[in-house]
């Protein structure tokens, strides 16, 4: 009996681990130049077709760019010298309910919102150092200059 319980618990743990691992929220569809992902404290060099996960931080180099397609059909891309975090992604494919929070430290970002904002305008939010952009349903772009770089630019 104890063995059975232990086995069941192991199975549950294994399944939880598997689902956490398999739970990609989107995939990299375009990529050029230097692109890295910070995931769980490690730096990963991704390839086109790879999954991205909630809490991933996407980093592009000075000639880098990357484009991702998410489960709700929203699309997000970053230009060179960008740092972008996929803070939260929740999407119910039956009801299209959920929300998507992205934050941007620096660089350029383009967004085409998908089913989440079709269902709930404002469900996709982009946080910049100065503001929160709530997307009601649209294509839009954001550029954020690194605060230090902006200060250096001042004479």
């Amino acid at each position: 009996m104890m063995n059975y319980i232990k086995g069941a618990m192991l199975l549950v743990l294994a399944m939880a681990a598997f689902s956490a691992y398999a739970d990609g929220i989107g995939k990299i569809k375009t990529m050029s130049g230097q692109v890295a992902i910070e995931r769980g404290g490690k730096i990963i060099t991704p390839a086109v077709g790879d999954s991205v996960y909630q809490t991933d931080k996407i980093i592009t180099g000075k000639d880098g760019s990357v484009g991702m397609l998410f489960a709700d059909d929203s699309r997000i891309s970053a230009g060179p010298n960008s740092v972008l975090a996929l803070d939260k992604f929740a999407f119910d494919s039956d009801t299209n309910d959920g929300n998507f929070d992205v934050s941007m430290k620096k660089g350029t970002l383009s967004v085409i919102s998908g089913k989440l904002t079709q269902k709930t305008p404002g469900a996709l939010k982009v946080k910049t150092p100065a503001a929160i952009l709530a997307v009601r349903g649209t294509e839009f772009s954001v550029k954020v200059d690194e605060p230090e770089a902006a200060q250096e630019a001042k004479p």
Partner: protein
Amino acid sequence: MNRMSKALVLLLVSTSITGCAGYSSFVNSFAPAKQPSEVQIAAYQPKDGKSPFCEELPKPLPPAVTEVYMVMPEEGGKIGTVDVIFKDGKNAVLHGDYSAMSLAGEEQKAFVGNQAQMRELFGSAVDALPKPPIAATLYFLLGKDELTAESKAEAENIYRSFVERQAPEILIVGHTDTVGPAKRNQTLSVKRAEKVRKSLIKLGVPAANIQISGKGERELLVKTPDNTKEPKNRRVDINVR
């Protein structure tokens, strides 16, 4: 009125000599004592605390622009809207093509941009946007896994648009109408999906990127009774991401 025109000349002179500070003190000096009409006061009231003349003067070292937001024109003519909520609690709405806002220091400036500005500011990000997911449907001959003449003609173009994509994820689902036994239709629906899969692999799509399934006669596009010929139900739905 005569006094006013003199005042104007003086004002211009004092402005050109002493700049804005002189202008302000000048305005202050002549305002209340003589009790001029409200219209005159209004005419010389500095806008937002600044003289209209001062606006012409070059501003020293404006703070660098740190953030820019811009709504891009959309496929299908939909109008985009973004709510901007600043950390200081102020908010703004960007609505419509190229509707934009820039932030320099504490100053928020709304403007309407254009295609060239969009390219210059965000070009490389815009170019990196993936293509939207697409769906296509191909139709089949009664009881066969062979495309109708019309679908055969369309198929090549549809397939090519898939092949052009980077890392496509392709989902192929076969269906039948209600003619014949359900079990046979289940097999037929898978054969139809398989047919499309083979064509795509032949064109160079990696097999690993394709998933197929068959729904038999369980998911009719057009609801019909059993044993009913319906060309629209004899189909394969293809979704590409």
